[in-house]
């Protein structure tokens, strides 16, 4: 039953991810990416992680993708027919390294998944994934990362302003 919901959503997510990469027009890519985010939210709901699912929609699909759309609108990236993409010389090493990094992460995820005993699923509490539960653990166990995140946001905000503000003083 669970898999009956998971597989269609996961398949759709993979198809949309391919669309993001192979779509010629930037708008099409962005729209597919929004769809992909919504699919991920669906997967989270299937795992009873309601709050995380909502975050996925509000932050990724709702806020970050709006910025993508704005940039597309501002630059008028209608189609890329006359733009030839080629990687810069210096980027090759970086690309290969990133590829290895991703492969490593995938290997770790798969090995953890395979080593888990799926016949005896871990007991989870009744209130798992609810907002109150997230709040309790975020503000007691993980309070330091939370406060550090505020400094990260501060830096991001200042950075955004410095980058975008053309006539500084």
């Amino acid at each position: 039953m669970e898999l009956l919901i998971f597989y269609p959503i996961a398949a759709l997510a993979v198809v949309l991810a391919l669309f993001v990469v192979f779509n010629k027009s930037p708008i099409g890519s962005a729209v597919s990416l929004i769809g992909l985010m919504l699919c991920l939210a669906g997967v989270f709901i299937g795992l009873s992680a309601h709050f995380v699912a909502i975050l996925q929609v509000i932050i990724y699909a709702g806020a970050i993708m709006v910025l993508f759309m704005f940039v597309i609108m501002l630059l008028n990236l209608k189609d890329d027919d006359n733009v030839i993409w080629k990687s810069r010389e210096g980027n090759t090493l970086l690309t290969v390294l990133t590829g290895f990094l991703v492969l490593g992460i995938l290997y770790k995820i798969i090995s953890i998944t395979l080593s888990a005993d799926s016949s005896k699923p871990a007991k989870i509490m009744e209130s798992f994934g609810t907002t109150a539960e997230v709040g309790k653990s975020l503000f007691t166990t993980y309070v330091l990362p939370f406060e550090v995140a505020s400094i990260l946001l501060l830096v991001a905000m200042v950075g955004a302003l410095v980058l975008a503000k053309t006539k500084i003083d």
Partner: protein
Amino acid sequence: MIDSVIDFLAPYTFLIVGAVKAVIIAIGLLSSVPLLVWLERRLMGRFQVRLGPNRVGPFGLGQPFADSLKLLFKESIVQNSADKFLFYLAPAVVVFTAIVTFSLIPFGKPFEIFDQKIGMWVANVNVGILFVFAISSMGIYGIVLAGLSSNNKYSLMGGLRSSAQMISYELTLGLAALGVIMITGSLNLQEIVDAQKTVPNILLQPLAFVLFYIAGVAETNRAPFDLPEAEQELVAGFHTEYSGMKFAMFFMGEYINMITMSALITLLFLGGWHSYIIPVPDLLFIGPLLVFSVKVFILLCILIWLRSTFPRIRYDRLMTFGWKILVPLAMLNLMVTSVFIVIF
């Protein structure tokens, strides 16, 4: 044979009941849109010392139906340089998100009939109000895509402006709702209403109510924040290139959003289906539903009243008002409320 079918289906009765309920609520919501259009045109007529539509049917009630039939038979022009798929997708996104948002809105007390407990809502999830915000924030893409796909200067500019306005006021909306959530300690809309049995939240959170209402008007793109339709500057904003039924769909979305927003304000601040001072009997589900509808109706009338009273605000003022006044005020309200909650 039939018995075995019934036995097989028995555990799933609630699923069938819920699905039927969802369809009924969808039909109810969609049929209330023409009524709201009629209400707006009649009220606007009165505000402007004229009659408004009164020829088609009793009190002119047939007017919106006649209009929508007419629009259905209009040619819908898609200009050549437009991105065809996205051009069709944009109004669809607007209406779809508007309808789906309403599925999280409870509008009455649950009641029991034939041993079935029936709630007056489509769905009741524990992240309630956040889900409403999440889906309604997806509605922005309808406007963005309309602006992007039309390949028209006015559309692009209008789309940019409207979406920037909507994201700016979304912040205030979220912050203002936090005060209420703190008082209740739950995101579930039904629990928020139940917590207001004796005192509606508007008395505890007057500032949050005002902020939420202003942000709500801006979110639904209604006057005086109807910058998307600033016809003097932008022809018709993001829907300049739209005609026929696709044009009407943007307005359908707007009217559904008006209903949803009014319902949300009623739930958060006005005590939902609880009636104060005047006692109202339950009568299965009719009493609470009536109380709720009356409150929503009054809020809708105020929205229309605002439209015919205030001139449109200038765009730079709109943005600075949102970022420099509403956001700090909402933050202040939040901090004061949290101190009160912890101390008492």
